[in-house]
């Protein structure tokens, strides 16, 4: 760890007069085991490392990265970023973050014992996952994929402005996709579990989800088009929160790409909706002590009781809007500069289970999975149209499964057509928590 920060410090020390320099160093170790048909198909073990350097000089920004921590290459990367800065447009608001006195939360995101977990047990876990999925239901005719993966990563960030931040995290996952068959019908469903250490993985849950999700769709057909009430399963609602997130980035607002622009202080959703981004929540997969510019993470309320409170800011967007950063800088790794966005988005949960909500609603569609989010949802216009699989329900009880259909509305309407928020909050891999959402009057397209 200290060697990463020491290297970052040495490179920052090469800054010239008048230059702001930020050095991000990352290093990680990954293991991945894929099994098929009772045998190991592949076992990968790999170390990844890299550096990203940002230079701001005379109001211009340049960036460079390299997939290496070799000191000479890191130094070259600084030179390259410096040279690139000469071609940017002058922008008086450009500048690196400065320490703001907020202390980082004490988060337990790293389990050193993962390093000693034997590879043979990882392999056994993946094989056991496949066996268990296959055995879970006689209608499961194959396992499309079953894998175990883990990573241990560390990073260091240092800058001429006095930022010095280090992070360490570990994580592991199992995921399986089952193929269920009956007659000529084949349907798929996946299940997974994520944890900080292998002992905490819930194999039984992954198996149950893959099995139930694939078998309950058997016999699914294209439904007739109609307007109806939908229940979004937690994994689906988490994807929709991800779409909303882009409109809540101050960067989108400043650049005229947010459907929430100019609406701060207005009611944008039903009064029982509260949306918070809180990377200090230890259960959140996106939790972290620092944001991507090295400021301590903090809880930001974005929508309170339906009213838009504010946006996610990094240092640059804060300066553009005359306010401090709220520690919402995000970056995809050492290959890119920090943007502004969410890491641990969640709606305030209600108190009803999915079954209770189904009973409350009576008739509708439970959406189990969606496809084509990237091609059919436009976070700028708010239009969305996505492929769905799920179960129609009547009198509060599951009825016919459906496939090859879409649901469509706009994000703006969806926030106002919300009927209920479930109490079944679940932190999912990615940047958001899922919970069952009930939305009225959505267009279902089929035959």
């Amino acid at each position, binding site marked *: 760890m200290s060697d990463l920060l020491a290297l970052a410090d040495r490179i920052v020390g090469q800054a010239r007069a008048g230059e702001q320099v930020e050095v991000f160093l990352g290093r990680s170790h990954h293991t991945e085991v894929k099994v098929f048909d009772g045998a190991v198909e592949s076992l990968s073990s790999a170390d990844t490392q890299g550096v990203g350097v940002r230079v701001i000089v005379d109001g211009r920004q340049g960036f460079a990265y390299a997939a290496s921590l070799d000191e000479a290459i890191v130094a070259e990367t600084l030179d390259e970023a410096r*040279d690139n800065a000469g071609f940017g447009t002058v922008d008086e608001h450009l500048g690196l973050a400065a320490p703001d006195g907020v202390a980082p939360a004490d988060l337990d995101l790293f389990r050193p014992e993962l390093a000693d977990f034997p590879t043979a047990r990882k392999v056994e876990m993946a094989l056991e996952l496949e066996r268990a999925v296959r055995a879970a239901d006689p209608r499961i005719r194959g396992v499309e994929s079953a894998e175990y993966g883990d990573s241990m990563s560390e990073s260091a960030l240092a800058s001429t402005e006095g930022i010095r931040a280090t992070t360490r995290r570990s994580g592991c996952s199992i995921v399986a996709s089952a193929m269920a068959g009956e007659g000529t019908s084949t349907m798929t469903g996946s299940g997974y579990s994520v944890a900080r250490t292998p002992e905490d993985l819930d194999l039984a849950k992954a198996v149950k989800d893959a099995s139930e999700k694939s078998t309950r769709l058997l016999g699914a057909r294209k439904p007739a*088009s109609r307007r109806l009430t939908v229940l979004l399963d937690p994994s689906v609602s988490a994807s929709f929160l991800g779409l909303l997130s882009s409109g809540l980035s101050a960067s989108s607002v400043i650049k005229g790409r947010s459907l929430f622009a100019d609406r701060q202080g207005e009611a944008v959703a039903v009064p029982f909706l509260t949306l918070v981004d809180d990377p200090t929540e230890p259960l959140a997969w996106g939790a972290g002590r620092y944001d991507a510019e090295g400021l301590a993470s903090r809880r930001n309320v974005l929508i309170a009781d339906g009213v838009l409170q504010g946006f996610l800011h990094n240092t640059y967007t804060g300066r553009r809007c005359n306010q401090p950063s709220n520690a919402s800088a995000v970056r995809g790794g050492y290959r890119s500069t920090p943007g502004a966005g969410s890491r641990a988005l969640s709606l305030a949960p209600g108190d009803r289970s999915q079954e209770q909500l189904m009973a409350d609603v009576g008739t509708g569609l439970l959406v189990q999975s969606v496809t084509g989010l990237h091609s059919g949802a436009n976070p700028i216009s708010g239009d969305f149209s996505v492929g769905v699989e799920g179960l129609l329900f009547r009198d509060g009880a599951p009825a016919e499964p459906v496939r090859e259909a879409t649901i469509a509305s706009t994000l703006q309407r969806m926030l106002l057509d919300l009927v209920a928020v479930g109490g079944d909050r679940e932190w999912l891999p990615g940047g958001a928590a899922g919970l069952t959402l009930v939305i009225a009057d959505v267009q279902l397209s089929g035959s």
Partner: protein
Amino acid sequence: MIDEAVVARVLTAALRTGGDFAEVFAEDRRSSSARLDDGKIEELTSGRDRGAGIRVVRGETTGFAHTSDLTEEGLRAAAEAASAASRGGGGGVREVALTRRDNLAPHEVSVMPEDVPKSRKAELLLKADDAARAAGGAIRQVGATYGDSHRKILVANSDGLLTSDDQVRTRLMVSCVASGDTGMQTGYEAPGRTVGFELFDEVDPADIAAEAARRALVMLKARPAPSGTLPVVLKRGAGGVLFHEACGHGLEADLVGRDASVFRDKVGTRVASRLVNLVDDGTYAREWGTYAIDDEGHVAQRNSLIEDGELTDYMWDHLRARKAGRQSSGNGRRQSYHHLPMVRMTNTYVLAGEEDPDEIIRQTPHGIYCVQLGGGQVNTATGDFVFGITEAYMIENGEITHPIRSANLIGNGPEVLQAIDAVGNDFDTWTGTCGKDGQGVPVSSGQPTLRVAAMTVGGTAA
């Protein structure tokens, strides 16, 4: 990139525990990009990725490790890790002798992007910004990104192969936001080719920007898309992604092999309308998915997949071909040295038919006309797929009428292929990135204007 003798010694080391096959894939990629947004050149970025992935295959198991250390010591460490991962039992020494094979490049690259002054790359973006904003006051925002990459690869394996390739790609992407009474709408245009900076001898950034702006302005007038089943006419070039999703992925031998494709056991049978002829061709000069060799060292080739509606073959990589006792079709690709190769498409094209494209529209009483699609997704095990429309119009009484808002279309691959009832005599291609199992690779797709008799359009208008 690496000395031949070193590669031979590393492969020998990789086989020391008894592997059947070992491979070194080394890569040195330099990339540069420039991004404009909100009227400003936000930044130029330079990137360097250099390293090697080593795999050892023993029986059904592949062991894989990668390293950014290209010294003999670093490569040997990765070879030993890969070898250990394949769980070899100890097999003595098997010396590897390499024979270098030179490849015929599909075309010459005339202007290496790294030789072009950075200021010229920035100028392209400013020109695009000006042109997009000149398209009308309703254009409120313009984003433009220039990107190039120069990827040198070396592949050597225990069959004695030693070969290399130099792949240069250049792309410009422009996106616009227009604002009007109906809110905000977007337009996007992003041509890319496997060429150097000479791309801009034929592609004018101002034209690309004007096209993206036109699209955003058209969408301001769009009405809600219909909901339900309709005939769908795809303009030339726009609909290649339909085939990429409807059957392309399902014809990848790795998915077929694990029984996760609806096209399993269908070779030699009718899987599409007789009007459909589909090829995957990595040799087309200058196309986005083109290369001299794939990422396993196999020479790119033209593979016929569907002829007159009959399935003729799948696409293959080294491992899947070896298992089936045949040659790879040159479709083994990987995103980078961090990844294992798998079966991937290159340039996937439906060949031109005989009908006049205008006539296809005239003979469609009520349907939609798709001019640009925005990507898609498929579940190969069920065959169900979606793709998004980003510029489309209603066809009423054989005429193109008003634009419709963006939506996904959904269908089932085998059913949609059978439902193609008209194929035009024109042709164009589309540039994209194909994602599979977390890896993105550059691909193109292409087709003539054609009609699907019925697909479900996922709009909101009843």
